[in-house]
């Protein structure tokens, strides 16, 4: 029983990381109807930026904030420079760009920062585990950070004018322009935010798995499974899906398929959702009268 509880809680904490990355995927999907395959590698790159800053002597949270700002800028620049010219191109052209981005980010990260595993500090300390030994301090802290990000994103989209404009620009660019929304800027903003959210996921997962250029490969798959499970059109769904996938992965890995085959769980979830309920748990089925 204690073991199951432990798996459950540890599933929730890794699930939080999937949730963040799934949210980043959903943000770009909502804006462009593309899944950014490079989201994970971009997050890894951001995590290396954070490590460089920390090693340069910046306090952790200053490095954290600077990393978010830099990642935001990188995301926005990618949208402006690479994606903008593709706005009217066929889907396959964008897919090509995403795959290219994935390979470029992966190689550039390895080239600049080398492929050796690097430890990444946790800001939450090494002290004794909490909740009677069930959760490490880092797990608790990263779950808190993840939740904070999710709440902020939710509030941003639900209650701010810019958040509303971003949703509008994604749903109906023509009408958005007619009410004065600068659609191009909204897309760049969306990419920037997604990159920043991905960076948080990277910085939270790195202390657990160690940092290397391929760190986010598996995480991206789980995040994608989470996004699909929750419904790729729903930010809330992405978050819930991310947590669910984390729990399924941990419990399935511990009791059913074993840790070596854990990644297949992600693939099973992806296939199952696409076959049984393509809109996911929370995905909006658009109703429309004519």
């Amino acid at each position: 029983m204690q073991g199951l509880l432990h798996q459950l809680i540890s599933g929730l904490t890794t699930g939080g990381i999937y949730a963040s990355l799934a949210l980043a995927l959903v943000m770009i999907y909502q804006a462009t109807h593309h899944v950014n395959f490079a989201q994970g590698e971009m997050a890894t790159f951001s995590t290396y930026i954070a490590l460089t800053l920390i090693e340069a002597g910046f306090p952790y949270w200053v490095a954290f904030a600077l990393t978010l700002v830099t990642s935001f800028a990188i995301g926005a620049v990618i949208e402006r420079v690479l994606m903008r010219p593709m706005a009217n191109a066929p889907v396959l052209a964008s897919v090509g760009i995403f795959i290219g981005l994935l390979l470029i980010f992966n190689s550039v990260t390895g080239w600049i920062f080398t492929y050796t595993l690097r430890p990444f500090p946790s800001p939450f300390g090494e002290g004794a585990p909490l909740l009677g030994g069930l959760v490490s301090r880092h797990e608790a802290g990263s779950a808190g950070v993840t939740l904070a990000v999710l709440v902020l994103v939710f509030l941003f989209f639900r209650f701010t004018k810019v958040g509303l404009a971003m949703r509008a620009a994604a749903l109906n660019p023509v009408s958005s322009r007619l009410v004065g929304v600068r659609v191009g800027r909204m897309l760049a903003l969306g990419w920037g935010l997604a990159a920043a959210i991905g960076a948080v996921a990277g910085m939270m997962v790195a202390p657990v798995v160690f940092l290397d250029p391929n760190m986010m490969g598996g995480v991206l798959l789980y995040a994608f499974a989470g996004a699909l499970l929750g419904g790729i059109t729903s930010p809330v769904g992405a978050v819930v899906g991310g947590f669910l996938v984390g729990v399924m992965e941990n419990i399935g890995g511990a009791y059913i398929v074993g840790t070596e085959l854990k990644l297949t769980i992600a693939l099973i979830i992806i296939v199952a959702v696409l076959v049984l309920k393509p809109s996911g748990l929370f995905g909006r089925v658009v109703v429309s009268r004519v």
Partner: protein
Amino acid sequence: MLLELRALHAGYGDTQVLHGIDLAVPESGVVSLLGANGAGKTTTMRAICGMIARSGEIRFAGERIDGLSTEDIVRRGIAHVPDGRGTFVELTVHENLRLGAYTRRDSAVASDIERMLTLFPRLKERLAQQAGTLSGGEQQMLAIARAMLMRPRLLLLDEPSFGLAPLIVQEIFRIMRRIRDDGGVSLLLVEQNASLALAIADTAYVLETGQIAMSGTAEEIGRDEAVRRAYLGY
């Protein structure tokens, strides 16, 4: 003149639809643009808002706007209710209205939304509903309310009666008359229903295959034999 078009050409890709149009909308005036399907009415609206490639001169409040982007044209005070209504179907009615006031920085937005809801009580009952679930008439009302929330100086209305039941059309035109009488907003109205359009307008233009075939006061146009036969059906 609030809006002036001179020798306006526009089209889609290689297909030219407008072949040099001159048109003017005076301050606080109501102008109707009549014409058969495919004459270029919607194209004229889109050209004004910079949604398609165009050449020629477009002046708004004296300034050239033919080189500006749609966003910048809109921000100068031109609200466009497009054909098909341009509803954000996935967003709620209230969110649609808030988007109408997107460019505004003043604090009267909330009270303006209230004002629109008294003008269109049907929308009030459906504020939290997904806008795609509204009927066609309600979506048209939403589109007009959204455009008015911009506090525009010029309102472009593209076929507000299209596909709607006669009773709803009457209601929409009653509200448009109120908007006209409140002053402050000029209207450029594209309408297939010529008798309704002429009843509300001061001046009218008849568009035929991308050129202005005729223009004059709404009364003159309404008396014209050819117009009556072609567009009024008697």
